[in-house]
């Protein structure tokens, strides 16, 4: 069921337009996981778009010539399910007449929409979904704010090798392709540094008992454990590793907030865990825009934002700047082109690394730095930036079909 949110404010009506410019409403759509296991990523993304739209409206809306557009957001729950996502986007395009689609936290659902979006008079802005192939299909009307999983996995592999580990066991949602691609890139870098991945144990997104896999891993005496997956199963894996007395360094790729982890594991059970991920929102690493985002989100929704949620917030601002640069809301091709030419804007919360001076590369892909975060005394602490080369990766991405 959709949630219609009219975010135009009286203040916005009164200010900025000088009483001369005509004012209209531009409806944008969000398809994201609002319920189910992936809601830990999808709901904060939907909230972020809603918040960004409110801020854009309060700042005077989107100016196109003499027209001013106030944003109106329609949100549908795609449950991170490909069929639901397809239905949600079809409803947005066919019934609601939406041309601009935001959100998209999860790769399976996003991949399904990407498979037909190239034929639509619409622009798709992808958030947290990290499957590489989303930006390798040559879709000119699609951009993504989050870097692909393997871009981060390679940096993580080099980092873990630098810690002196030689034998690492992997436990994760390896049947999900973007987690598998993270591990593949991790393994490649780790092997180049002389390391070996000695186990690939799998859990499903609904699994909550990882003790059989961890028992098997424990018997192999690895130097370290790498956990890749959604926040909740990953948190159970960390918790159950301590319950099995596994006193080895634990690394992960989850992008979960402190609150999300603490719903499952205690701070003591999480102590020392590393999260090797894009340098997303963590207070220690945040810019002024990031700190303001964190404060506003917390005030508005009563919960701290998840680290990956600004990917969607930045989508809304990117869209505003692209529409203004294109000078049209109707010509989606022009807006898509303007997105490709966009420079990183001051409202961006994530710290993007431009390629050729632009926020999105020729594939429509944006890049952030990668970072190593560690759980210390109940908080994710930014420890160091991981080496990231967006230009080289962009070239590699362009070389793929």
């Amino acid at each position, binding site marked *: 069921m959709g949630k219609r949110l009219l975010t135009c404010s009286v203040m916005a009506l009164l200010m900025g337009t000088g009483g001369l410019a005509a004012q209209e409403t531009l409806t944008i759509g969000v398809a994201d996981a609002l*319920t*189910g*296991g992936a*809601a830990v990523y999808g709901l904060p993304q939907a909230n972020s778009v809603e918040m960004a739209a409110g801020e854009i409206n309060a700042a005077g809306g989107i100016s196109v010539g003499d027209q001013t557009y106030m944003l109106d957001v329609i949100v549908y729950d795609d449950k991170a399910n490909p069929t639901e996502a397809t239905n949600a986007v079809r409803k947005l395009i066919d019934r609601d007449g939406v041309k601009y689609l935001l959100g998209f936290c999860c790769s399976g659902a996003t991949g399904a929409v990407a498979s037909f979006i190239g034929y639509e008079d619409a622009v798709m802005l992808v958030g947290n979904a990290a499957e590489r192939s989303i930006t390798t299909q040559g879709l000119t009307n699609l951009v993504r704010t989050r870097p692909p999983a393997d871009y981060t996995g390679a940096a993580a592999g080099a980092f873990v090798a630098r810690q002196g580990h030689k034998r690492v066991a992997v436990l994760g949602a390896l*049947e999900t392709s973007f987690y598998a691609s993270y591990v593949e890139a991790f393994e490649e870098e780790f092997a180049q540094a002389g390391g070996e991945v000695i186990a690939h*144990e*799998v*859990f*499903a997104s609904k*699994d*909550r*008992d*990882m*003790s*059989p*896999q961890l*028992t*098997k891993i*424990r*018997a192999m005496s690895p130097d370290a454990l790498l956990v890749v997956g959604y926040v*909740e199963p990953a948190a*159970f894996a960390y918790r*159950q590793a*301590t*319950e*099995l*007395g596994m006193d080895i360094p634990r690394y992960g790729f989850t992008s979960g907030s402190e609150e999300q982890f603490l*719903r*499952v594991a*205690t701070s*003591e*059970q999480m102590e020392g865990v590393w999260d090797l991920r894009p340098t997303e929102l963590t207070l220690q690493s945040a810019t002024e825009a990031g700190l303001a985002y964190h404060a506003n989100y917390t005030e508005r929704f009563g919960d701290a934002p998840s680290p990956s949620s600004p990917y969607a917030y930045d989508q809304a601002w990117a869209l505003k700047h692209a529409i203004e640069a294109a000078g049209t809301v109707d010509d989606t091709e022009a807006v898509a082109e303007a997105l490709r030419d966009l420079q990183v804007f001051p409202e961006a919360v994530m710290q993007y690394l431009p390629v050729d001076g632009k926020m999105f590369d020729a594939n429509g892909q944006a890049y952030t730095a990668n970072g190593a975060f560690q759980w210390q005394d109940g908080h994710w602490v930014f420890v160091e930036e991981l080496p990231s080369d967006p230009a080289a990766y962009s070239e590699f991405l362009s070389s793929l079909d």
Partner: protein
Amino acid sequence: MTEILQQIINGIAIGGVYVLIALGLTIVFGILGIAHFAHGSVSMFGGYLTFFLVVQQGLPLVLAIAIALVTGMVLGVLIELLAYRPLRNANHINAFIVALGLTMMVEGANLQFFGAEQIVIPTNASRVFDIGGLTLPELRLYVILGAAVLIAAMTIFVEETKTGQAIRAVAENRDAAILMGINVQMIPLVVFAISTALGVAAGVMVGSLFAIAPGVGEGLVVKGFAVLILGGLGSIPGAVVGGIVLGVTEALAAGFISSAYKDVIAFIVMIAVLLLRPQGLMGRA
């Protein structure tokens, strides 16, 4: 060898939960002939209620569990009185449909009252015991002990008390039980109260060991029925053996083959057992 023993310990903890679910199902099925599909959802209700009392109301965990157990018993009595009793003399298909409807109603009520978010019941049991190279987390130890106590208590109740004898008499022959002066109107109420309390206990265990979320109860009741069939329909010892066998099989399958196939392997074992013993492990031929 240590790894196998560790996997068996892992399996016994989850097997204990399956036993409690299956016991609740087996006494209802054995005595009233009802496939009580809503048992999993009711079990989740108990877990949600305990979470609510601990996290929202700040009650100590033990007190919250006690309140949830009593509430569960009352709920069980209401379910019997309002949903199943009016259909006692009707065709079995009616009770089957009511059971399905009840599942949706309880699941919907859980969603309405407690929301769609996954919850984990907080406990302070985070110690780890090391016994000869085998590790036993404190929480799993409590789950195993809790399940053992409840199984023993139920066995004693059914075998040693007058009400227990009356329950067995109704299960054996309802008409003869009436002739013996047993209040057969009361027995179903007692059975549902016990069954739901066992389900609530299982819900608390799942909620503290793992997590509760919409849909978890449905998975649990499927496992409960699998245990029921594996152990033998209506057999209390069968439910105990079947639950432990299923839990340990799942753990060994996940540990030595693949977690992706643990349910498949557990059900293959179940089918294999039924081919050799169609009446189940402890059922009567």
